[in-house]
């Protein structure tokens, strides 16, 4: 109370005028009391959770539910001591209307549905037969105990019906308690799904039995007719099947609605919660099993909803659901503890309490053994003894039982107080004692644990294949078994249901394998970025010093070029003077950022919209992640494969370079910041007149490197600019740029031989003569050196020869064929690889399709976005440039200048 009072803000609303004149402030506790108490309790519970988890040791031994109950007991004691009466109890209404639905929805929605339906037979058996068995045997045994006169307290006035009623409510395994404990004990998935599924589904049985017996008790044993029993049985089917039907109906509605939320993404999560809750209420309204309704709504809608809603909504749904469920659970357990303090509701009878405890344990065990015995005759994978022990022992009772027992009418059920006390003891015993001991038990029995690993692509593929194989074998032997029907269902789903319930775009891409692939890629990419981040921070990058920062703002090459105004402007000395430390650092920084981050985002616009979240960023990012990731994967694969050759080629190339090139003093990184619009630049420079110029810039590191501790990538660049104008109608310019970068060193930290894929800096990309970006066939195939050195050599030789004989440039470099240089790399790799290593022709390669995609990519207009998404492997132009290298990178700029 005090806490909430403190939170109370000074009253801002005027309120009704007070009689004694205007007030400054008014105490309005009454008005906010309800919500404030709720908020306060949630806050307490959540804070308690934080405290529990401060110590890893405690939570690893004691389940959270136990701690919460104990906390509740403590708080209840305090409240009792302060208020002199028990307050803040677990009200059945509040429990059933507000606390239970989130938990059930959460468990339904995140239920591994395949596993659930694979084991549906066992789950249903345990849920239905098991619960019936438990109820009747426990009730009857207690009644026998009572008849035998063992219950000393005369207050226990109860007949067979009362005991059966009690048996029904006490026998149900509680989903909340089971989940709370089993989530921390990682038993194998089959065992988990059976126990958990049972606890969810047996609610229907419990509630029906409870209602039937309750009505019987209210009728009085004398007035029950045979017809009533029949009704009882009928209502069981009605309630459970009806509840399921309501759930399915709402799942269908929900899926259908989310199909059309494309323009109102922001309320997508709301629909999920709203419809599930409405399903719960609707089922409750017509007294069908609401838990079943929500469970099946969750299980069935998930596939379609997840496909329809956006990634952000998915995350939102997930987190909100988990938050709600977790806080509900917390509150339930805490309030269980608080409620237990209220002794006014208690009436203790030792025999009843002990008897109940004994019987529920005994009959659960017996029931499990008998049912398993029966089930194992049908199950192909028998449940062994250990499983049975865990299943028997895992039968935790919880808040459902407590809420049901509180709901009993004292006027009709005379022994209610005794039942309440017993229920509390049973719940406490099962949650605390069994909850505490189940973990050691599982360890001691060496129960098969589940290894929690993320699905791998191969597993997914194999399992997929597997399903088909099994279905086929069933077809062949002509037995319509489980796989047959599952197969049929999937076909039906694909043909009709998914078409109806999924957005067209979602439906098209919908495939489990693809999903796994997609997720895997993103995960890899993220972890890669994480690693990259570390690498970056590893002091490889000296931040530019202040003075150098200011030194050369306007002396960009563009300007220089414009000033000089001639093709010969590639005055190397000029460029040399332009070079500064800052440039180098900028370039280095750029490469690192480029490699480890994704495409620089547009700055966040300071706009606010309640209804829209900027839509397409995610997609763009996904695409990037795809590309980079696939690149990296390719890298890990091939990075080293052609090292030998490429180093050879490098050597040769260098030799030639020395001959032909005008060697510059070292440290000539051409990192040019072109301030002027490229087009302008282009116009200013009469390239057609340009004399062939070959510039070779090699960095010191590169020269002296050979060690693995190379510095940040440094580009030596060879410019071979030449005019072939005379020859090719004065239109073509070939520029070969060969920056040698040694970037790999910085990434040695990475576990895989992955390398930050450096990209050319803006300057490199937009070299002055690269006028109109759209028309220019500027291709950077750094990959060439790495992967297909042979190919590179060819290209090199071609360009060299073209250099040598200005009059007759090789046709391959002319005109339209330039475009294909984008990925000559990939295109010709198989051949060249087999050339180089013929014996490896059967080895893992990435043959032609990549090249095809690459080519199509290079020609593709920007609207081929979806295609890109679908072709993560293909080398886009950008990727090509970003290719990491341990070797000098060879960038080829070929430009047809018929602009």
């Amino acid at each position, binding site marked *: 109370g005090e806490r909430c009072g403190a939170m109370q803000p000074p009253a801002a609303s005027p309120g009704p005028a007070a009689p004694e004149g205007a007030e400054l402030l008014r105490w309005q506790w009454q008005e906010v009391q309800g919500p404030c108490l709720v908020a306060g309790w949630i806050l307490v519970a959540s804070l308690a959770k934080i405290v529990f988890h401060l110590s890893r040791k405690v939570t690893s031994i004691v389940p959270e539910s136990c701690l919460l109950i104990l906390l509740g007991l403590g708080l209840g004691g305090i409240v009792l001591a302060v208020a002199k009466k028990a307050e803040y109890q677990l009200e059945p209404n509040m429990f059933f209307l507000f606390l239970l639905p989130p938990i059930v929805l959460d468990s339904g929605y995140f239920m591994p549905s395949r596993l659930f339906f694979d084991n549906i037979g066992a789950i249903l058996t345990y849920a239905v037969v098991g619960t019936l068995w438990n109820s009747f045997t426990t009730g009857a045994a207690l009644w026998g105990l009572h008849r035998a006169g063992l219950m000393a307290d005369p207050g226990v006035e109860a007949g067979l019906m009362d005991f059966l009623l009690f048996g029904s409510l006490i026998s149900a395994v509680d989903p909340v308690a089971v989940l709370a404990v089993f989530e921390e004990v990682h038993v194998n998935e*089959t065992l988990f799904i059976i126990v958990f599924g049972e606890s969810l589904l047996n609610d229907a049985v419990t509630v029906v039995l409870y209602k039937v017996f309750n009505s019987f008790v209210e009728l009085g044993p004398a007035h029950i007719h045979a017809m009533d029993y029949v009704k009882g049985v009928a209502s069981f089917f009605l309630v459970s099947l009806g509840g399921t039907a309501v759930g399915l109906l709402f799942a269908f509605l929900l899926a259908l609605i989310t199909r059309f939320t494309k323009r109102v993404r922001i309320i997508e999560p709301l629909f999920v919660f709203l419809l599930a809750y409405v399903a719960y209420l609707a089922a409750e309204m017509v007294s069908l099993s609401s838990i079943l309704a929500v469970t099946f709504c969750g299980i069935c809608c998930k596939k379609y909803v997840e496909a329809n809603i956006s990634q952000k909504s998915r995350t939102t749904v997930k987190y909100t659901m988990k938050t709600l469920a977790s806080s509900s659970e917390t509150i339930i357990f805490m309030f269980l503890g608080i409620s237990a303090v209220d002794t006014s509701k208690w009436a203790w009878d030792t025999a009843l309490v002990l008897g109940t405890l004994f019987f529920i344990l005994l009959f659960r065990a017996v029931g499990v053994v008998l049912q398993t015995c029966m089930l194992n005759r*049908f199950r*192909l994978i028998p449940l062994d003894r250990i499983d049975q022990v865990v299943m028997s022992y895992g039968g935790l009772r919880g808040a459902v039982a407590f809420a049901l027992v509180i709901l009993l009418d004292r006027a009709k059920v005379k022994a209610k107080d005794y039942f309440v006390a017993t229920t509390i003891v049973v719940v406490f015993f099962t949650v605390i004692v069994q909850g505490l001991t189940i973990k050691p038990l599982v360890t001691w029995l060496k129960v098969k644990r589940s*290894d929690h*690993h993320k699905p*791998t692509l*191969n*597993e997914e*593929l*194999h399992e997929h*294949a*597997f399903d*088909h*194989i*099994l*279905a*086929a*074998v*069933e*077809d*062949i*032997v*002509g*037995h*319509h*078994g489980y*796989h047959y029907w599952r*197969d049929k269902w999937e076909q039906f789903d*694909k043909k009709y249901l998914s078409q109806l319930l999924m957005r067209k775009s979602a439906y*098209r891409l*919908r*495939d489990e*394998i*693809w999903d796994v*692939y997609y997720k*895997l*890629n993103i995960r890899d990419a993220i972890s890669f970025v994480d690693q990259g981040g570390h690498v970056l921070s590893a002091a490889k990058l000296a931040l530019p010093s202040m003075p150098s920062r200011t030194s050369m703002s306007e002396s960009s090459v563009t300007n220089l070029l414009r000033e000089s105004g001639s093709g010969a402007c590639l005055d190397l000395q000029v460029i040399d003077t332009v070079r500064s430390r800052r440039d180098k650092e900028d370039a280095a920084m750029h490469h690192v950022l480029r490699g480890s981050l994704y495409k620089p985002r547009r700055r966040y616009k300071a706009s606010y919209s309640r209804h829209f979240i900027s839509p397409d960023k995610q997609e763009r990012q996904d695409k990037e992640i795809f590309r980079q990731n*696939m690149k990296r994967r390719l890298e*890990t*694969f091939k990075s*080293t*494969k052609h*090292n*030998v050759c490429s180093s050879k080629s490098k050597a040769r190339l260098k030799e030639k370079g020395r001959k032909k090139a005008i060697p510059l003093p070292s440290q000539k990184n051409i990192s040019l910041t072109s301030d002027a619009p490229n087009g302008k630049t282009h116009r200013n420079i009469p390239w057609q007149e340009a004399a062939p110029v070959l510039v070779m810039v090699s960095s010191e590191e590169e020269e002296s490197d050979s060690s693995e501790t190379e510095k940040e990538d440094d580009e030596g660049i060879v410019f071979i600019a030449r005019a072939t104008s005379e020859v090719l109608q004065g239109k073509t310019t070939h520029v070969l740029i060969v920056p040698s970068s040694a970037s790999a060193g910085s990434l040695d930290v990475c*576990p*895989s*031989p992955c390398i930050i894929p450096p990209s050319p800096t803006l300057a490199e990309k937009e070299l002055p003569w690269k006028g109109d970006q759209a028309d220019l066939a500027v291709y950077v195939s750094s990959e060439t050196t790495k992967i297909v050195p042979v190919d590179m050599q060819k290209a090199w030789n071609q360009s060299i020869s073209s250099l040598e004989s200005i009059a007759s440039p090789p046709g391959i470099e002319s005109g339209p064929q330039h475009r294909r240089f984008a990925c000559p790399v990939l295109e010709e790799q198989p051949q060249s690889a087999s050339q180089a290593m013929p014996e490896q022709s*059967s*080895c*893992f*390669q*990435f043959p032609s*399709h990549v090249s095809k*995609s690459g080519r199509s990519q290079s020609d593709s207009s920007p609207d081929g976005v979806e*295609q890109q998404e*679908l*072709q*993560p*492997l*293909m080398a886009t132009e950008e990727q090509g440039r970003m290719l990491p290298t341990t070797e000098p990178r060879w960038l080829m700029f070929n430009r047809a200048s018929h602009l």
Partner: protein
Amino acid sequence: GSLGAHPPSPLSLPPTVTSEQIEHLHRRFKQLSRDQLTIRKENFDSIPDLEFNPIRGKIIHAFFDKRRNLRQESDGLADEINFEDFLTIMSYFRPIEMNMDEEQLDRFRKEKLKFLFHMYDSDHDGKITLQEYRNVVEELLSGNPHLEKESVRSIADGAMMEAASICVGQMGPDQVYEGITFEDFLKMWQGIDIETKMHVRFLNMETIAHCY
């Protein structure tokens, strides 16, 4: 190691197969073969349910694989199989038994996996090469007309790379991953309890009401 190096262990039908089950299978066999003594490939085409199975070809193929699945001396594909062969193939799909010890279980598991492996390894060289893998994935995903071939391939490539990283780990400079060997295949399946999954009910249930 090539698979051919290991002589196939004699496979006996499990004791759980009752004569009734065999009878049922025999009835089915006769139905498929149209009362002939052997089944030919074409006979499988008459099974209507099989029509929609994307990897139908591979599965049927497996039934006729002489050396590897039928455990015969000669290589290549059989033109027709008799009932015994049929049972041999079926026995790959028998469920696990309660009283198996570790060693048996391991062999059991390997047998099943070998069957799968053979399905992937279409050129019998003991390796699933990228091309073979791609073929399988392509077939697998052929049911989805919206997935483009390129993306299907990239999935196969991704899977292959994943396999390489699982099986080889860090690759040496001159190392090339040529394909998934059976040992690698075993590694990849470590997470999945295949022995608890690869089975069909017919071998454990005698009453098959739906059979025609």
